[in-house]
């Protein structure tokens, strides 16, 4: 086939090969050539298209297509009445925001629907050891605007970001959006010398040929399967329940609703993320059975349970969970009123005074002078917004490589197709945007040097830059999850020490904050975070040293901790 394109010029007596448009021998339908085909129109895939489109050199020289099965025009025109929020919310770190500003997308995000996080309160569900993070402790974040640099992160609905990305893409004509189109199959073009490129067959019958095929197609990535990239990981025995919560505004003597709260219950962390003075978002990771029961129960039950989960001692939270689980397994359900009474009873038995912020009746009664622990817990939830309660399974998953191996594979993975992470640190989307920034730079550099952007040589710097960085974040978050899911006393005790030790060290604290949102453009924060995790485990080694003094029995217990933690 290829030799058909070769001419011998006899006159000069030397062999001469001249390139001509190849006659392709594939089925009658024409194949369209693209330099970049992005599979998946989620925030990461759209950000990649936007990022590429923001460079003049790329706009002029690369043909880019994005394939998405869903209806993108609905996302572009998405709108909600004021004070209504969708349930999938991400905390955009400062470094992610700087990237979005650079490519011209951040200005298209509806800022009135985003909310800055200026403080975080994280505490252990069992020992109540608590850390408070304040944006003041942050290392400089590279954000030019002084007001914005005092933020740790910006909570943004995923749809708000996606809409901004789609509006940005509208202005870039060289990028083709193929929406409501599924990828039917991907195969390698058959060519002499193994130089075939990936062929993407679409549900509308067309076939695209990719110089570079990008998998932004999520956890079950078909592109990853085509590239033959294995991934390793596990499902946590946990589901995340999400919902949009309504609550009363903070009183005049309290701070604004700029504080994110997270309590590490043994069943998983529950997080309260502010969206507006009266609306916040819930991400509650818990056992699958309870998640199901909560989603099926009356919406008022979830509201009461959220209040209780942030306030009551763990023993009572567990009791309430069992109550709901029992009712669910019997096929009946508990009314919101019953739960409310049960909570009131348990508050009394725990001697929680009515004026304390920990009481579920107090804040509603007295809008005047707040109690001194008022900012220790989130505002009381009054209701959930209709249709926002949902749940999804949680996984840990990391591809063994981000680039397809073997000659001429021409595939690369970004975002969830490459890595899936526990949401407790709110890093999933930020890792994806970090991938995008790195890949865009890599492609731009290759274009500037006349490289073949699909080649392994061109893409190698992307994998080298991202793989280990992502891996460190993922393992740190995974270890945090495992450390805090234990109810086993020595572990609880050790981690309470760990947390209080951490609380003393401002630098480690600043590093831990990276975990939940803030971020510098540079890398060292995660190294610091890794040290923070080590800080927790050095709490363990202190415990171990003490244990050796106390006696053999205790010592074996501590060794058990070390062994169990070592397994994770």
């Amino acid at each position, binding site marked *: 086939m290829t030799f058909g394109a070769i001419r011998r010029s006899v006159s000069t007596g030397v062999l001469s*090969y001249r390139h001509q448009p190849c006659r392709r021998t594939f089925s009658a339908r024409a194949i369209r050539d693209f330099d970049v085909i992005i599979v998946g129109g989620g925030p990461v895939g759209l950000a990649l298209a936007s990022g590429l489109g923001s460079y003049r050199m790329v706009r002029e020289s690369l043909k880019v297509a994005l394939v998405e099965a869903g209806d993108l025009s609905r996302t572009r025109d998405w709108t909600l009445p004021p004070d209504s929020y969708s349930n999938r919310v991400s905390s955009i770190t400062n470094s992610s925001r700087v990237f979005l500003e650079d490519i011209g997308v951040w200005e298209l995000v509806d800022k009135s629907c985003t909310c800055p996080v200026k403080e975080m309160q994280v505490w252990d569900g069992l020992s109540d050891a608590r850390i408070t993070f304040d944006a003041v402790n942050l290392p400089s974040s590279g954000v030019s605007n002084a007001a914005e640099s005092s933020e740790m992160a910006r909570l943004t609905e995923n749809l708000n970001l996606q809409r901004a990305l789609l509006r940005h893409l509208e202005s870039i004509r060289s990028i083709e959006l193929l929406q409501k189109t599924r990828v039917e199959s991907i195969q390698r073009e058959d060519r002499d010398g193994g130089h075939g490129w990936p062929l993407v067959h679409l549900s509308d019958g067309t076939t695209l040929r990719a110089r570079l095929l990008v998998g932004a197609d999520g956890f079950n990535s078909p592109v990853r399967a085509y590239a033959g990239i294995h991934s390793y990981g596990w499902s946590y025995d946990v589901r995340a329940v999400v919902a949009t919560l309504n609550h009363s505004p903070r009183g005049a003597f309290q701070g604004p609703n700029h504080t994110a709260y997270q309590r590490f219950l043994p069943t998983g962390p529950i997080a309260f993320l502010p969206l507006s003075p009266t609306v916040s978002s819930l991400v509650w990771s818990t056992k699958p059975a309870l998640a199901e029961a909560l989603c099926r129960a009356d919406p008022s039950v979830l509201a009461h349970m959220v209040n209780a989960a942030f306030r009551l001692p763990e023993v009572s939270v567990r009791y309430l969970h069992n109550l709901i689980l029992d009712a669910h397994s019997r096929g009946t359900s508990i009314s919101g009123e019953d739960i409310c009474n049960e909570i009131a009873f348990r508050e009394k038995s725990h001697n929680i005074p009515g004026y304390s912020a920990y009481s579920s009746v107090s804040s509603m009664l007295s809008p005047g002078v707040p109690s001194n622990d008022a900012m220790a817990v989130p505002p009381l939830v009054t209701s959930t917004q209709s249709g926002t309660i949902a749940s999804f399974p949680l996984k840990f998953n990391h591809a063994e490589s981000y680039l397809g191996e073997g000659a001429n594979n021409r595939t690369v993975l970004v975002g969830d197709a490459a890595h899936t992470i526990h949401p407790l640190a709110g890093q999933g989307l930020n890792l994806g945007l970090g991938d995008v920034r790195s890949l865009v730079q890599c492609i731009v550099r290759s274009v500037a*040097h006349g490289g073949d952007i699909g080649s392994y040589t061109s893409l190698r710097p992307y994998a080298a830059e991202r793989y280990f960085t992502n891996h460190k974040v993922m393992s740190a978050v995974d270890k945090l999850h495992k450390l805090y899911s234990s109810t086993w006393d020595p572990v609880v005790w050790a981690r309470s020490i760990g947390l209080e030790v951490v609380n003393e060290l401002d630098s480690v604290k600043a590093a831990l904050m990276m975990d939940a949102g803030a971020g510098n453009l540079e890398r060292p924060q995660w190294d610091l975070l890794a040290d923070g995790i080590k800080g927790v485990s050095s709490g363990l080694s202190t415990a171990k040293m003490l244990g050796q003094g106390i006696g053999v029995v205790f010592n074996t217990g501590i060794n058990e901790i070390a062994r169990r933690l070592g397994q994770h």
Partner: protein
Amino acid sequence: MFTTGVRRVSRLTQRTRFIQTDATTSTVNTAEIAHFSRLSSQWWDESGEFALLHRMNPVRVQYIREKLTEIAREEKGEDVGREIEQRRGAFRGMSMLDVGCGGGLLSESLARLGARTLGIDASESNIRIASLHADADPFLSSPSSTGGSLQYRNTSAEHLLKEPERFDVVCSMEVIEHVDNPAVFLATCAELVKPGGHLFLSTIARTPLAFLLTIAAAEYIMRKVAIGTHTYSKFVNPSELVSFFQTYSSPSMTSAQPWITRTYDGGQPTRKEAEVRGLIYNPWSGDWVLMSRSASQWGAAECNYLFWVRRPLAG
């Protein structure tokens, strides 16, 4: 392996290799051609025999691009320079010749950046592999809007010289250390450059360090490069290239001036006439790094280096 090693070591004592013009017209070494023909199927295996070359390629193109932009900026002004930096097709409107193109690593990049590119190689199988590979790329196999085009021919520089066409840029990367008669080869490449055009070369200096890295380590110890790829005595020092162009002037011109008219202390040419830049491989990151002008003067060009020289408008 050991005996060849010893033989090569004994040649370390041979300190200078004068580049002299002599009557022989062919510079093509048949043994070298056979060696690369054997390896030709490997050209596009990016993790195989030529992995190091694949990684070196972006740096070579980066250098060509930077140098041409620098000269354009100097002669045509800042605005033109900036435009070339940002637009696609930095080499638009230029004709370029890649002598000893091999599998076409450099030729493809030049064509993508908009140059009308001709790649030539004395090995027929190299040309076949290069053509086959470029055919798979629709950008290279069909006329492109950047004006770039790519053509391969199985011929030698000497044959090409008999034809009338001359080029804005002539590149010959990692070739001169494989030819038989480097002076004739240099003169041939030089003659193929249009007046005011550019000649880019890359090769390896003849130093003990280069012997250790490119032959002992790369070929025998790490086995990253096929044994027998390099011959120490054929390596060329930067100072030899500089002194060649200090005396060289084009025979086709009547009032010819040499390409390099003056040098600074230490034999450095002026920035507008010629340049030597070291290329250093970092085995930890697996990347090649282009050294600065000043570093190249102080030993960074002891091993791999790039050489650029400009043909004077009247010379």
